């Protein structure tokens, strides 16, 4: 029985934490927002140099080929640090799509540059309101050209390439790679809840597209989303832990009625509940890490469970962290709102909590039928 990260990953975590702490002390993220930056280019280059971007990308494609455990751990730490970088869009979504469904040429062209950080990618799936479903993909690809209206596209302002969902001539949805500086692509920045990670709207008009040959049919898109859901779950668990740590620290420092507010059961029990939700989410995410690392048939159930638990935990932690901080939690200067905003953004990014709850129940029912 070994249901924990390997010793190597535990050691690596210390290095990741140290770097993130030095680079993003409390307040640095807000300064980036105030300066209108949603990414720190020097930090992004560093992530590439450290090998974090390509940690799960095979060596033959310019990565470190270390598997998914270290990637999950980095996702968790990035989530806790609220690091301003298009890490999840580029790695969990775009690089994963290329790895799963790209041909050799596509992989050779893009993956080494994504591992180094030279190229940032994202996924363009949504077309306005609604959760992921085949009928919602209205964008169309004909003769390697896509037309459609995609929004929100997270990190669409920074990305050089997007993996775009579009229906082919047979009406089946699939994925194709679009270079966003090409003719026929117009992008506008959208005001969004998350103050750091921004979203764009991509209007594609006969934009040149390179279909990913393995990604034909809705099942392929679900497979990509399942795997991404597990990686996002780690980012969410990290965020929930970050918000909990912040709330605990405030509860110890802040005095009222002559004693630390953390000595009042109304506060203690609230924090205990966040701890429990976060640990349950962490445990579900661990199972997800095991599933993707082994490409296990349990992945769809593991992914939905990890996502439901992580969205629950981060929502609770983000919301109650503000409550514990009282009036301070309402100010721009406190970091509370960053967690609160990110919790919502991440709860929606590959489909809403309601969508994943339903998917979990459906997957469990179909597992029982088999």
């Amino acid at each position: 029985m070994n249901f924990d990260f390997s010793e190597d990953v535990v050691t690596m975590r210390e290095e990741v934490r140290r770097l993130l702490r030095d680079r993003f002390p409390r307040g640095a993220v807000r300064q980036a927002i105030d300066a209108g930056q949603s990414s720190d280019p020097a930090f992004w280059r560093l992530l590439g140099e450290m090998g974090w971007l390509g940690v799960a990308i095979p060596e033959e494609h310019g990565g470190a080929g270390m598997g998914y455990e270290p990637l999950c751990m980095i996702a968790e730490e990035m989530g806790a640090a609220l690091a301003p970088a298009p890490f999840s869009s580029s790695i969990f979504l775009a690089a994963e799509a290329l790895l799963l469904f790209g041909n050799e040429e596509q992989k050779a062209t893009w993956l080494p540059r994504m591992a180094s950080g030279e190229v940032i990618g994202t996924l363009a799936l949504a077309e306005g309101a609604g959760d992921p479903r085949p009928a919602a993909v209205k964008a169309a690809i004909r003769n390697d050209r896509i037309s459609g209206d995609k929004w929100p596209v997270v990190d669409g302002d920074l990305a050089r390439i997007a993996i775009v969902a579009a229906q082919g001539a047979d009406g089946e949805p699939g994925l194709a790679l679009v270079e966003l500086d090409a003719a026929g692509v117009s992008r506008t920045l959208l005001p969004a809840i998350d103050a750091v990670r921004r979203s764009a709207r991509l209007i594609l008009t006969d934009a040149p597209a390179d279909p990913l040959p393995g990604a034909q049919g809705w099942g392929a898109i679900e497979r990509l989303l399942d795997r991404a859901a597990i990686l996002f779950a780690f980012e969410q668990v990290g965020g929930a832990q970050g918000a909990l740590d912040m709330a605990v620290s405030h509860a110890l420092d802040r005095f009222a009625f002559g004693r630390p507010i953390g000595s009042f059961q109304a506060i203690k029990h609230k924090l205990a509940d966040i701890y429990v939700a976060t640990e349950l989410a962490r445990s579900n995410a661990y199972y997800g890490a095991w599933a993707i690392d082994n490409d296990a048939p349990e992945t769809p159930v593991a992914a939905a469970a990890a996502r439901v638990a992580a969205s629950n935990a981060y929502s609770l932690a983000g919301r109650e962290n503000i409550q514990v901080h009282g009036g301070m939690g309402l100010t721009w200067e406190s970091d509370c709102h960053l967690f609160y905003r990110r919790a919502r953004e991440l709860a929606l990014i590959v489909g809403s909590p309601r969508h994943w709850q339903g998917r979990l129940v459906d997957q469990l029912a179909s597992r029982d039928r088999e």
Partner: protein
Amino acid sequence: MDFSDTPEEAAFRAEVRAFLDANAQRKTAEARSANKSRAMTPEQVAASKAWQRKKAEAGFAGILWPKKYGGREGTPMQHVIFLQEEEKYVVPISVFNQGVNMALPTIMAHGTEEQIARHARPALFGDEIWCQLFSEPAAGSDLAGLRTRAVRDGDNWVVNGQKIWTSNAHFSDFGMLMTRTDPAMAKHAGLTFFMVDMRAPGIEVRPIKQIAGTSNFCEVFLSDVRIPDSQRLGSVGAGWKVALTMLANERLAVSKAEGPDFEDIFLLARSVELDGRPAVEDGAVRERLANWYVQTVGVHYTRLRSNTALSRGKTPGPENSIGKLVGASKAQEIATFGIDLMGMAGAVMDPELAPMEAWFQQALLYSPGKRIAGGTDEILRNIIAERVLGLPGEVRADKGIAFADIPTSSR
């Protein structure tokens, strides 16, 4: 990460399975809801004793115990493996948890060699059942507020008072008894611990009828009960220290909640209809199901994480409180929701008419107890907040004064 046993663990698991296959029936799907009546009959007690003896003779009853007292001196991981495997078989409900996993480890930590030698084997081999005489009418969560008095009289102590919520007292042979020996001292300082023969003159056990109509805990009245000083556990005034050992062992002796659990409500939601469609298709039902599923497997995987810590030689800490805290409320919520899914018929408890032999209806009545017994939800949250998160204790009005001077009412 992997879920496989080490070669040593695998070998032990095979040994456990061979023993269980030879001595018990593997659970079938229908057996999930078996054993749900919570009152112990004399036949069940006898069956529990026989099963305990069988396990002890095979070396599986005291996996963590020293060999000289009949144990195996095994690893915590072996203990966990045995529990994991035993759970898959139909075996009698154990009445030995309090003796083997709580009382005797405490006696081994604080008792004399004679005391250990007298009590260890009879407990391990199923001959003597133990109960825990802790809570009192005025001392529950605030355990150290207990008032049962022990007064020295030569080589004996004379005990007067009342204990309550004592599980299994009506068929126990011995009790772990905490008393107050000096009310002039501060609350935690004036306590002394004894092992008491439950058939001693002056002990009266009255089963309490619980809300489900059954009785599995009792009131215990102690009137001039004489206990030899040789049955004192630890020094005079050191009772709280002994109690803390016992409570720590209680947390390790995790017992799984009886449910109904996710699998049961999931089955029900697929078999009943709401507005002419299977309940499982209803959005509100799906939301609840998904959340219970992630709690259920989350607790399971959290236990696997703590087993991993055990396997790596670390001691699991108070984070083990999560399972009980989450499981108790979940059982109550699932019972209530399950009954509501049955619509107007949900209020019927007839096992012929209500689904799953009226398990959900029974659980509605016994599940509130799960949130109180063995540490209330509130105490567990305090434990997590103070010992895991490092938050300070509540300000107290009973510190630094004699026990006798602590306020007890608003009048």
